[in-house]
């Protein structure tokens, strides 16, 4: 599976999809392709590069090298559609004791200058700078934030989706920069998932995949520098 498809699948794991689409994705061979692709991207120095088969073959570290066994098990047994829906209803809805909205604004300072509101230095607020940046970026690309994401253009599903779009469009450097800039908040989000009463290992595993990809790219950047 190509890198852009890996990010598309990751996006669909955190966003709302219909039953047919989820079944096709999670029950067929596509899922194992996704896991294989995720394992490979976690070991790549750059995104979207067209590697020779031999180079790909060299990258064979198993997922266990990067994830806990519980997370690996969870990733190998993705939730059913009903389970995915139930998790979203309890955790991807706002205002609940068990809410764990995957939205970047909630984990960053609301605004560092663009909007000097009385509460601009607060964290834990929707529609912070990251949300407005995302909306503007999406629109600069000629796309639109869907109405369902109006409160959270910086929802993890959209951020991952945008990485996929950029990779698909040959914007490897831009995707790389975006990924290293945007996904630092996932460390805090992972901590939130860990506190949930329900089993969140599937989503924690996915977050760890993204965090690992980001770490790999950051290290590669540092090495170049």
């Amino acid at each position, binding site marked *: 599976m*190509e890198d852009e*498809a890996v990010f*598309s*699948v990751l*996006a*669909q794991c955190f*966003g709302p999809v219909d039953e047919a*689409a989820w079944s*096709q994705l999670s029950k067929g061979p*596509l899922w194992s*392709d996704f896991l294989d692709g995720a394992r490979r991207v976690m070991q790549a120095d750059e995104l979207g590069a067209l590697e020779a088969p031999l180079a790909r073959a060299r990258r064979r570290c198993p997922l266990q090298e990067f994830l806990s066994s519980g997370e690996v098990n969870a990733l190998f047994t993705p939730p059913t559609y009903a389970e995915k829906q139930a998790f979203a209803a*309890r955790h991807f*809805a*706002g*205002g*609940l*004791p068990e*809410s764990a*909205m995957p939205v970047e604004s909630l984990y960053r300072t*609301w*605004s*560092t*200058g*663009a*909007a*000097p*509101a*009385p*509460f601009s230095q607060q964290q*834990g*607020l929707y*529609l912070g700078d990251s949300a*407005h*940046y995302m909306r*503007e*970026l*999406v629109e*600069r*690309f*000629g*796309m*639109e934030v*869907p*109405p*369902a994401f*109006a*409160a959270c253009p910086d929802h993890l*599903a*959209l951020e991952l*989706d*945008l990485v*996929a*779009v950029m990779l*698909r*469009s040959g*914007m490897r450097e*831009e995707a790389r*920069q*975006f990924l290293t*800039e945007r996904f630092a908040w996932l460390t805090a989000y992972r901590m939130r998932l860990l506190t949930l009463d329900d089993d969140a290992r599937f989503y924690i595993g996915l977050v760890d995949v993204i965090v690992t990809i980001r770490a790999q790219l950051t290290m590669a950047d540092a090495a170049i520098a």
Partner: protein
Amino acid sequence: MSENAITRRSFLAGSAGAVALTAAAGFMSFDAWEQAHADDASGGGETKTVHTLCNACSSKCGFTAYVVNGRLTKLIGDADHPYAKGKICARGFGYSQIAYSEDRLTDPLKKNDQGKFEAISWDQAYSEIADKVKAIIDDKGPQALAMVQDPRPSGKYYTKRFMNALGSANVYTHGAACNLSKESGMTQAIGTGSYSSDVANAKMTMFIGRSYADAIRPSSVAALQKAHEKGSHIVLVDPRCSNSRVFADEWVPINPGTDLALVLAMSNVLVARGLYDKEFVAANTVGFDEWARALAEYPPEWAEKVTGIPATTISRLAVEFAEAAPAASIEPSWRGAFGCSYANSGETARAICLFNTLLGCWNQKGGALFTPSVSAGKLADERFADPKKPEDKLLGSAEYPLALSSMGTNLFAAEQAKEGNVKGMFFYNSNMAAGYSNTAYLADALSNLDLCVVVDVQMSETAMLADYVLPDTSYLERLELPEFIGGKVPAVALRDQVLEKIHPNTKPVDEIFAELAEACGVGEYFRFGVDELADAQLQTVGLSLDTLKQTGTAHFPEKEFAYGTAPKFKTPTEKVQFTSEACEKAGLSPYPVWVEPATMPMGDELRLVGGKQAIHSHTQTANIEDLMQITKDYDLTRVWLNADVAKRLGIEDGDEVEVSNTQHTGRVRAKVTQRMNPTALYMPSHYGCSSPDQHTAFDVGLRQMDFVPFHLEPAYGGAMTQEAVVTVKKVGA
């Protein structure tokens, strides 16, 4: 499905989301974006301004919201708004962040079999709620349904219309836990629930239990400051020396629950010494002689033993009032000491009106004023016709006959829920379970319902008890109906929509109840938009929605108040009623007499009193991080304890203490101070949130209502929120 198919499935709308971008030119790093927007607020961004109304307390002050590139950046109080006068308070600034709060409810919720909430669709919520409403009506009739709401411009209209359309008369405000007793008592005496003290022009004003500097309305604070600077005699009667002390000449540290005794004794002095306005009393009152005779039982020496105030002070205050009259009054208060606090709250309110009558101060400069108001006229459009008036009366109106029907006693509805007579309850903008009376009792009562629906912006304690929670938009995201405001120059103001709806699956109150009504089969009463109704209402007073949106506030100078005009008392006798047949019929004395509080401290017990701090509105603002930070910075969850009492109990300032009574036990730090009456313990009424979803407020401080027994004031139906005694001891001692 092919890999290609996966990548075509994109959340991002537009063809590029599904396929590929044609150029990389659109990319911008976050750093570059920040630099590009660095001067947005100073003019670089697209700025719009909107006049609207605050929602941090019931005052609803007008302000102008500045929105830059779609984001709220600045709030400036509207100079034209009669309450704001160009300023809003800390709560007003702080509360605005509720719009963006992570604790906002984003979707309709249903409690599942495990007692946990899950997001559901609006259609499912409406359908299931409607089925349950119909089942309750089929089984027990519409009077088995009740609504509790804290009035807001649209909410008070739509909730009442919804319930009346269903055939239920049971629409309650929060009043039983706020100002029901005060408004009802005053109505018995003067025919209206309140009046305005002309503080800025007074020679003397007495505040009983109310602190303008703690429950801030900017115009009130400004008036108090002006009075103070002009040398007006300002007297605070309060067990706690409040923050209004800075504007006052005198603090009278009365024993809580004994304000009635003070007023009776001051009245005794005026009558006994002939210092009252005999001409006004003769021309405008009924029953004076009977009350005057009864007052003989309440000389200052008697009151000293009850109130803890020296008889000489009581006499002096009465004489000073007489000397200042008619430019003097006892301020009407709101919740304070007699809004709903004690077994004698209604009678205290009644007595205060009668004392002011002795001063002859009604409609006199510096006195107590009946200021004019304007309201929308009858609407010709049939779509706005009222539903048929329910056949039955509001539940509780027989048991608590003096409670104003415009408020009702919501606690009676809760009691009926516990007893199984009320089966379904709706709550709008109301956190009854945490703030109205005993929390354990109310949790039991609401848990006994077949249907409990809460409409709110965050997961309140009441919402936690609900079967369905419907997510409201914040006050910044909706247009509401016009708010008419009485005053020397009456006005009307508008809460306009400042921000685009933030969470797409939330709805404003007008839509929620209109759609719920449709699901319940009474949608014919809601076939109009809130903008249409607002415009229609404004047209009846010579305005339009468009014009009011431009100014935010409009005044009616042709209705301006004039000093010296004869007051109109809307009592049955059209006079001030020193005696009230309704009170007598309700089992009270026809004229105000001393009524003991229901609970008196014994031994080491202290009376538990609550009250506002300037940065919070009851439990509503506690989850606002900036406001809670002030609480933490100044250690404001502390209970206040008199220094002499503290010394006797071995408690020092800052010690952790255990507060306990038969209802509850909890720990908090103590503020040891001489600014507290020795018979009382003050506990701020904002804390102790038990909703874990309110991440900022949860588990901070103690909650007053945990300690207050469930009970209702006879005849008036108030919650008697300060009829509780506690003991306090140092932890570890």
